[in-house]
């Protein structure tokens, strides 16, 4: 009944495979960001496959946010190489921005615009045509079951719905990669799972998902996770392999073992 | 008491560790005094003047000759009547006019003396004052020429009327205005922001859930800003005296007492605002819109009140700084005593008590 479960299986099943060759959505090689004498990101290297759900974990102040900003085309690395959706983080920031979606817990939607206005706004920002916005937004509203709320202000929505809507908006322009910065903070367990259903669906449709979270059970929803400690990637594997490696059955313990020795911690 | 002192100490830490607050506290008064002081004292030249000469005699011709000879004035076409003068004032063609009565020459030898009417556009009060001074000295000179022996029988009495701004606000009057403005910024805006910041931080919740009496929070917030306002006040006075050579004519004690009264009014306003708002931004907006703008516009220190529509003139009566401005002007610049400003003082006392009571009442012991 049980089958052996290996890394390769996972990849061939879930990564988008084109002509048998694994496509890379993100490639990082020796990426470093230095602020004065402080190395926020210290020589990190990793790949993210196309269509993969990649968990990007780390203690507070480990350098996650800085790394994510570089990958989103918002800041330049000090040294090292990286491409996102095939575009260079030094020279092609604008093209990166066009090909990614971004959502965070802190900023997602405009509270004083209606749902539809928010969708139209983001669609417009990413250059989706007017007619296309109309079609896609009515699709979106009906899949989310928000027909009644479409003309309500976002501020009137419960938090869980806001986050779901924000995610939908982040992938509205059908980006190659979507970056999610602690998307489910404070959301109830049921809504959190509905949110992850949406993530799975997006990944199944070929969108690469790059996500940070403080919920360790969510880390296990990811195909692979990396754990950053003091600016470096200390571990990178499937959740199952990591647990095996640290001889535990909880991601919490894995994380604790890795991050316990962290020297620096600041926000 | 120990708690209160610790709190006040903490407030001073906040102030001295925030560069922006420091800049507002000490940079602003200095810059304003220097800016107003020097920008307003420019020399006056080429003033457009028209003469309505009803006498047309030797004396008037000589006086007109003297006026036109200097570089101060440009004598325009003579006017025929008052209506014409007024029109030309309105059109901005002239800034000043001299009117000679019909019997100027014969009046000259009468005991009452001859009268010249001098009219100046005082919507720019500084220019108007300068113009009047020039004209006065020209007329004075001529008087002396006529009567070198200084017999009292020949006299020309200039009757000066400052159009549009009869009280002639301006010149050094900006100093009381700047003082009022600084008090508003420090005592109203900064205080309200300081209280609201605690709300935003969440520290207000802790302070409320402590044995520390809520009212003490307000007092502890108010005291440092009262002190800082007074420091600013002293800086402004020193700048005025040593940099702009202003003579402080009235009693310093009275000036300080009135200022403390006004600061308390401002503080109460600030505390009231902080009780009604939840974010620093809103507090700042209300302080600016509700307090500083009226101070600038409705106290008469930037724009003469007399020229304003009636509505604004009535509105100005509820602006506390209007009274403070008038008190300081009277005491500091004119050297008047308390008996001249008791009415304004009383109004300020009433306002301060009212606002303070309201602020304390509105202060919630809960969220």
């Amino acid at each position: 009944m049980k089958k052996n479960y290996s890394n390769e299986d996972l990849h061939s099943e879930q990564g988008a495979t084109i002509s048998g060759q694994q496509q890379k959505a993100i490639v990082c090689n020796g990426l470093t960001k230095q602020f004065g004498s402080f190395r926020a990101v210290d020589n990190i290297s990793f790949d993210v496959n196309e269509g993969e759900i990649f968990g990007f974990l780390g203690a507070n102040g480990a350098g996650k946010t800085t790394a994510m900003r570089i990958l989103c085309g918002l800041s330049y690395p000090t040294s090292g190489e990286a491409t996102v959706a095939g575009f260079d983080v030094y020279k092609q920031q604008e093209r990166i921005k066009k090909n990614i979606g971004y959502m965070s817990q802190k900023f997602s939607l405009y509270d004083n615009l209606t749902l539809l206005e928010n969708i139209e706004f983001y669609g417009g920002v990413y250059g989706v045509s007017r007619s296309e916005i109309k079609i896609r937004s009515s699709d979106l509203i009906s899949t989310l079951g928000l027909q009644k709320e479409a003309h309500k202000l976002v501020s009137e929505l419960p938090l869980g719905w806001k986050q779901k809507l924000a995610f939908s908006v982040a992938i509205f322009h059908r980006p190659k990669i979507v970056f999610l910065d602690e998307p489910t903070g404070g959301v109830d367990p049921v809504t959190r799972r509905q949110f992850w259903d949406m993530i799975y669906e997006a990944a199944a449709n070929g969108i690469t998902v790059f996500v940070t979270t403080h919920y360790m059970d969510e880390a296990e929803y990811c195909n692979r996770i990396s754990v950053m400690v003091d600016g470096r990637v200390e571990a990178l594997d499937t959740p199952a392999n990591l647990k095996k490696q640290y001889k535990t059955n909880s991601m919490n313990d894995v994380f604790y073992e890795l991050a316990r020795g962290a020297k620096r911690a600041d926000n | 008491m120990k708690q209160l002192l610790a709190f006040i100490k903490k407030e001073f830490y906040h102030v001295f560790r925030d560069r922006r607050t420091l800049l507002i506290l000490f940079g602003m008064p200095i810059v304003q005094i220097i800016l107003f002081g020097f920008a307003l004292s420019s020399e006056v030249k080429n003033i457009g003047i028209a003469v309505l000469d009803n006498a047309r005699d030797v004396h008037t011709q000589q006086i007109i000759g003297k006026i036109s000879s200097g570089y101060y004035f440009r004598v325009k076409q003579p006017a025929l009547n008052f209506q014409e003068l007024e029109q030309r004032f309105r059109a901005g063609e002239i800034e000043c006019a001299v009117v000679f009565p019909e019997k100027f020459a014969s009046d000259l030898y009468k005991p009452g003396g001859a009268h010249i009417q001098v009219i100046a556009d005082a919507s720019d009060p500084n220019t108007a004052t300068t113009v009047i001074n020039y004209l006065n000295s020209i007329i004075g000179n001529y008087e002396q020429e006529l009567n070198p022996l200084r017999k009292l029988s020949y006299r020309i009495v200039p009757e000066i009327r400052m159009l549009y701004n009869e009280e002639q606000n301006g010149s050094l009057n900006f100093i009381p205005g700047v003082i009022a403005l600084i008090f508003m910024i420090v005592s109203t805006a900064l205080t309200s922001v300081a209280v609201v910041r605690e709300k935003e931080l969440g520290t207000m919740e802790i302070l409320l859930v402590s044995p520390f009496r809520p009212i003490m929070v307000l007092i502890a917030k108010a005291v440092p800003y009262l002190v800082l306002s007074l420091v600013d006040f002293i800086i402004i006075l020193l700048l005025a005296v040593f940099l702009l050579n202003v003579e402080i004519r009235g009693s310093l004690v009275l000036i300080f007492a009135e200022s403390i009264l006004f600061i308390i009014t401002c503080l109460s306003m600030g505390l009231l605002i902080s009780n009604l708002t939840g974010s620093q931004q809103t507090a700042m907006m209300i302080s600016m819109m509700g307090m500083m703008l009226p101070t600038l516009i409705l106290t008469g220190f930037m724009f003469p009140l007399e020229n304003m529509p009636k509505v604004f003139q009535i509105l100005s009566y509820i602006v506390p700084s209007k009274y403070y401005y008038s008190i300081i002007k009277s005491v500091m610049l004119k050297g008047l005593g308390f008996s001249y400003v008791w009415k304004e003082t009383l109004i300020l006392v009433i306002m301060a008590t009212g606002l303070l009571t309201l602020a304390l009442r509105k202060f919630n012991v809960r969220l």
Partner: protein
Amino acid sequence: MNSVEVINIVKTYGEVKAVKNVSFEVAKGELFGLIGPDGAGKTSLFRVLTTLLLADSGTATVEGFDVVKDYREIRNRVGYMPGRFSLYQDLTVEENLSFFATVFGTTIRENYDLIKDIYEQIAPFNSRRAGKLSGGMKQKLALCCALIHKPDVLFLDEPTTGVDVVSRREFWEMLNKLKKQGITIVVSTPYMDEASLCDRIALIQDGTVMSINSPDRIVKNFPKTLFAAKANNIYKLLQDLRRNSEMESCYAFGEYIHFTVKADDADIVRISQIAERENHDGLEVKQVIPGIEDCFIRLTLDSGQKIMDRKK
């Protein structure tokens, strides 16, 4: 006497019902957890108990004092750490601490025993400004500030939100030490995995307490047998299981999918048969003991069911 008693508290903001008729009590020396997501009403409850907010109806007492009438007494006896509390960023660690000590009418030295363990961890940063501390350090400093006057009851509103796993674990260790000193602790958290660290918990959602009990009891009260399954393609497995008419509930849980079936007499053999129908690679099915999160999901879905029934 109970340390905290809450009876039928209701709190509304305009049309929003934040707290709907909540009742519970906390025994002296107990570590009591309010577990629920943002917007569940936890903060409103805390504010009512710390006398910061007046409830619309219902009563509450803390250490026997009424939260409305005797608010001054309560304020002398409780320590409170609000959710968004971030201290004075521009004051140093020591200045913050001594300020709060003075405000509470005490000194750092007087109650040093109580905060010693925690304070020693932040003491090396004594002269650093609070704004420059890490998230975990800030929490520790905030806890010190809340403890400085040796309160009888400690109210901690989401002290571990946004803090990483390591700091969270340390924080809970500190709470357990404090508990041993006899302080009653009421703590709220959105992290379900922290529930098991409390003596008793209230699961709260949408302003309603869904269940109050010890974590063990809540787990024991789970009405169904819970199964877990995983396969190489977990998303496909989830979809297939959901389509299955025998399923009652089915959701992702860590690397597994947790599910219950409608039949009450389900055993692992039959369940495996159901799961195997779709021919998944790497399929693994097992029976598991539910966690607090499973219970929370169950209770949420049940209450959702009830709401829907009422609508019909």
